[in-house]
């Protein structure tokens, strides 16, 4: 069981899970605040990766600058996504509209439509084949740790993800804006009555969530060395799986379930070919929806 091969797969799974965790956090934040699934989150991931790629091919800066550029593009993309696809459906603020299912469905469909437009636009601009990252930027130089061979990418992803999680925790608990995010996700109408600017809070949530998603995108792009326009679709679904498994409004739950997902996926690749490894995530989703409708860590939800 402590065969170095399995330890290695465990390490790979952990770093994969960390990228899913970064995506899942953004997803959960947005879902918590707006109660709507953001189908375009996978496209933010892709945009982050492409932003990094463009910067690398244009001006070869150090890796830290590339990551910062991805974060900036992610923040901007999140802001524009909110303004474009989510804001127009909040123009009715009466009680009936706020609770209406049609409103939520149309928001969902609009984010789906925007995600399609963005993906196809990226395909037209960049072409749909995989672009490879120039060699100096790839973060997979192997590093020996005891019996296991890891790559530098694992450490970098772990470090960046941990830093972002700690930063998010600080933001949510110690700053005013974090407080307003938590208030709006708890009770949007109540937060409005108390005087919190829900609009600004929602924008802020989108910005923070998209920054994390874009960071995940650039990190995975540099780790695997392949960047292509359709790369955001599957991680978006996996982020959704992690969110549902963790209980919808729980960020630590989403992170833990993302790690579990990553580890199970990399373990599964030892037994089946990698084409089937996506089935793990879908299988987990179906199992969770049927047997654990409130997620593993979540508070009770009225109806699933």
């Amino acid at each position, binding site marked *: 069981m402590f065969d170095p091969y399995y330890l290695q797969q465990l390490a790979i799974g952990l770093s994969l899970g960390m990228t899913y965790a970064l995506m899942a956090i953004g997803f959960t934040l947005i879902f918590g605040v707006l109660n709507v*699934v953001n189908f375009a989150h996978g496209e933010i991931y892709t945009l982050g990766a492409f932003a990094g790629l463009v910067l690398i091919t244009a001006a070869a800066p150090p890796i830290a600058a590339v990551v910062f550029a991805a974060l900036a593009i992610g923040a901007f993309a999140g802001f524009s996504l909110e303004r474009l*696809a989510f804001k*127009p459906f909040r123009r009715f603020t009466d009680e009936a509209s706020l609770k209406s*299912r*049609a409103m*939520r*469905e*149309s928001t*969902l*469909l*609009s984010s*789906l*439509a*925007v*995600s*399609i*437009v963005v993906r*196809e*636009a990226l*395909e*037209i601009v960049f072409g749909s084949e995989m672009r490879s990252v120039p060699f100096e930027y790839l973060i997979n130089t192997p590093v020996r740790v005891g019996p296991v061979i890891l790559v530098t990418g694992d450490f970098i992803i772990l470090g960046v993800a941990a830093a972002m999680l700690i930063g998010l925790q600080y933001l949510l608990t110690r700053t005013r804006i974090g407080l307003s995010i938590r208030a709006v996700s708890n009770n949007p109408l109540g937060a409005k009555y108390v005087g919190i600017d829900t609009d600004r809070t929602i924008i802020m949530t989108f910005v923070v969530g998209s920054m994390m998603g874009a960071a995940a995108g650039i990190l995975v792009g540099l780790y695997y060395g392949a960047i292509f326009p359709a790369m955001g*679709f599957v991680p978006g*679904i996996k982020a*959704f799986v992690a969110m*549902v498994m963790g209980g919808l409004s729980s960020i630590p739950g989403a992170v833990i379930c993302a790690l579990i997902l990553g580890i199970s996926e990399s373990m599964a690749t030892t037994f089946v*070919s990698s*084409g*089937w490894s*996506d*089935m793990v995530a*879908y*299988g987990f*989703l*179906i199992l969770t*929806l*049927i047997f654990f*409708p409130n997620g593993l860590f979540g508070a009770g939800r009225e*109806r*699933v």
Partner: protein
Amino acid sequence: MPALIGVLVFAALPAVLASFDRGYFYQIANLALIFVLLSASMHLVTGVAGLLHLGHAAFYGVGAYTAALLTTKLGLGFTWTLPLSGLVAALVAFLVALPTMRLVSIYFAVATLAIGQMLYLVMLNWVEFTKGPNGIIVTKGLELFGVSLSGRLSTYYTVAVVVVLCVVAIGRLSHSYYGNALRSIREDDQCADAMGVRTVRLKMETFTLSAFFAGVAGSLWAHMTGYISPGDFKFSESILILAMVVVGGLGSLPGAIIGALLLILLPEGLRGLGDFRNIMVGAVMFLSILFLPKGLLGEVSALRLVRQQLGAAWRRTDNGIGIGWR
């Protein structure tokens, strides 16, 4: 009105196609008809019953693969594969529906998305059975009881007859008391359940029925084009069908048909834009949700239209007051 549509589909359009006599136009017409069937079946499950179904193309694919595999491995002709692919797709949908039917709205949507993706992965990776990405070449064209129907005009007529029959069936389903029950489930299923409507059972029936029609469409596609591959049944096709229903109007069958025709014929008409077809689908969907949330022919207008034109099923008292579907 039904006479007008019948004349259009069975007389006017074939006359136009025959006069141009270009295979490409026949392909477009057949493609449009198949997608009319797909979007009508999607209308039944998403528009009328309110179950947002993001994996419809996968059941279309199940039907197509059934038809293809039956033809290539067992040598059965279209006469057999048409009902069988519908039945197999319905069976798969039934098995899928058993665990997932108690989920609501977004959870159901993502569950169907996952199911669609799983079916797609099976089609792509189970190479021994489905030949994976290479696809399957369907050796037999359309035929009925041994009479070959694979000439251009006869293909068109076969597809048109099957599609019109299915659309009429879906129309009778959605404009009846059964359809009203489904709409009540869509609006508030807890309330409908409390009133005695068998919610879970109706949802399962609708899901299975729409998959049956999708399977039928799949067998039409397999025999018509002669080659299928997993790429025809990806998530983006599901989104295309959803966009057709949304653009036409959720809950309106004429709207679903108009949406299907629009989203198939418009890219053909704007051939010059080439690669922009997919962007256009997304953009049209987005703009229609934003500016025309009720769709091009919204549900209320469509119901009124159907009652006026196809009023045979609408019972009236002696002084002409409408009192309900027959």
